[in-house]
């Protein structure tokens, strides 16, 4: 497996390391902030799943589209969203990427092709299908990626999307992040059979991969994105992974009985996608350690700056709360 990485340019590998680490450190900060009571709303962290967002988004430009989930910080950052403005958003500040109107579950930046996190499980799938339709109509090789969880895979809209995307050969990549849980329900208790296989009856190519291996993700996404850009239609990628933190940060306050064993969590921590990747990079090139350390420091600075930016940002104007529901309202008429 280690060799698999070696096909990729060194710069690309380092960039993936950088992105994964950025997501990780940003979210560790959010975890601390949440514990300190600094965050107004709930946050669902992506810790342990970073390889998926990063391995996929590596193939995308700002002009490609992604839709995301309630666990959306990783996708936002992997797709090039601004860390400081994300932090300010989650803090509920005026300089947040959505002006404090959206919060954690709605971080979005259309200028980067980020249609946004989504508080509705499965909600992003239809939006991505629509963006794929738009991309096909534009005919300029853009693609749309829908990230969604194993729990979301049980929403019928997934099958509806598989059907339409297959019929119309839409440039859509469906990326299922199977982290073993749908909230507090282990996947097997709520999901029958195989998620990846659900693509088969629709004639959509699918693959099941190790989602904690960023190179494996890169490769699967590479194939799917190429297919999509070439007009050959949709694909489904099921990436197996694990969230090593809670479903939602404050779950300890209401989950009184454990829904998973500590040993299981530990076993997955040992397969941490960033540690594994760093190890592999060092094995391939011992001298790279310095570079990784430099990146780590760089990221620490970014996170610190993001916190400062967010803290310095004012609260939104209360008077603006009613604003921008509509792009245009007829003159002289009250909505």
């Amino acid at each position, binding site marked *: 497996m280690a060799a698999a990485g070696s096909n990729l340019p060194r710069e690309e590998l380092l960039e993936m390391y950088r992105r994964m680490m950025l997501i990780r450190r940003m979210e560790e900060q959010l975890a601390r902030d949440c514990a300190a009571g600094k965050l107004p709303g709930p946050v669902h962290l992506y810790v342990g799943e970073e390889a998926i967002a990063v391995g996929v988004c590596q193939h995308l430009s700002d002009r490609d589209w992604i839709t995301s989930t309630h666990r959306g910080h990783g996708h936002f950052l992997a797709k090039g969203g601004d860390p400081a403005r994300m932090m300010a958003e989650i803090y509920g500040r005026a300089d947040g990427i*959505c002006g404090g109107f959206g919060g954690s579950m709605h971080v979005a930046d259309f200028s980067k092709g980020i249609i*946004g996190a989504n508080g509705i499980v499965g909600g992003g799938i239809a*939006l991505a*299908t*629509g963006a794929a339709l738009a991309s096909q109509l534009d005919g300029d090789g853009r693609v749309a990626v829908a990230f969604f969880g194993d729990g979301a895979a049980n929403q019928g809209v997934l099958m509806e999307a598989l059907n*339409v995307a297959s019929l119309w050969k839409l440039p859509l990549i469906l990326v299922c992040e199977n982290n073993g849980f749908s909230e507090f329900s282990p996947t097997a208790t709520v999901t029958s059979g195989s998620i990846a296989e659900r693509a088969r009856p629709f004639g959509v190519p699918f693959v099941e991969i190790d989602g904690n291996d960023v190179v494996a993700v890169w490769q699967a996404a590479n194939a799917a994105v190429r297919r999509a850009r070439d007009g050959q239609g949709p694909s489904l990628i099921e990436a197996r992974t694990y969230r090593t933190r809670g479903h939602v940060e404050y779950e300890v306050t209401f989950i009184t009985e454990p829904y998973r064993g500590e040993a299981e969590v530990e076993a997955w921590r040992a397969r941490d996608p960033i540690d594994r990747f760093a190890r592999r990079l060092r094995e391939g090139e011992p001298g790279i350690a310095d570079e990784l350390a430099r990146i780590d420091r760089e990221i620490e600075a970014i996170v610190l700056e993001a916190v400062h930016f967010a803290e310095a940002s004012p609260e939104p104007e209360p008077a603006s709360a009613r604003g921008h529901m*509509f792009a245009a309202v007829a003159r002289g008429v*009250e909505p």
Partner: protein
Amino acid sequence: MSRKRMIQAMNEALLEEMERDPRIVLFGEDVKASLFGDTKGLWKRFGPDRVRDTPICEALISGMAVGAAAAGWRVVCHMMFGNFVYTGMDGIANQAAKLRYMTNGQIKLPITYLAVSGGGRSAAAQHSDAIHPVLANLGGIKVVMPGSPADAKGLLKAAIRDDDPVFFLQAAGRGGEPGEVPDEEYVIPLGHAAVRRSGRDLTLVAIGPMVRPALKTAEVLACEGIEVEVVDPRTVVPLDLEAILASVRRTRRLVVVDEARDTCSVASHLAALVVERAFDALVAPIRRVTVPDCCIPYAPVLERAVLPGVDRIEEAVRATLGWRRGT
């Protein structure tokens, strides 16, 4: 001017707008065959890229409209019957109505959803709901309800050109009664009520399909010298409240006719707005002529019993005119 049915007027509006703007895409179930006739000929004219038959999957298509609009296209999404909007409600209520606001106005969502709404054709409970109160309560959806073929054309053009999600609700099924439609190009901006008939005795606000029976009632009463002013809001969101208030301040009496179930109807909302803003002007209670809080039944005799018609409108108008303090 030419006489046309509402459905033809809509068909012309769709054709002209798609002709005008190559970035309009239209999709829905059987839009090629066109069950109602509103999308007839579009597939032939604009081809299978811009006019697409979808499978039956309302949950997907309502959300696809949002994604395609966010990604820069102008979308017309046909939901067929109002009741099927419930099936695709997530895309409407959780996505279309919210995405712009949640993202601090980063995007425009130029979407026109089309649906037939309301009863009167023995299509029974699952094909006859008047869904405009539900849509209006969502806050992020404009709601257009034409009362005539001419309005249908001008308002549909405005809806399509609008940069926000608009629900265009037509009651006409496969045709509707014919009316005069201007031959030249025109657009009727959203949010402007029309006074369909002037009168000084009572303001009768009638929404969408209720405009016709309201006008008939006004005609009947005119024979007795009762002058009813009929106001047609044309769009429920945005609402031209000033026009309604102006009329009520003159007539001092209001009856609202709305083909919605009474509870939380637009009729109720208009009554609430008027009693708040024009209390001083009112000299009688505001009456609503609506559908009782039940489903729309199948048998014609039952359906007639629940839908507002000339009889019930007339009764409400007379009761309002005859009302005296302390009675």
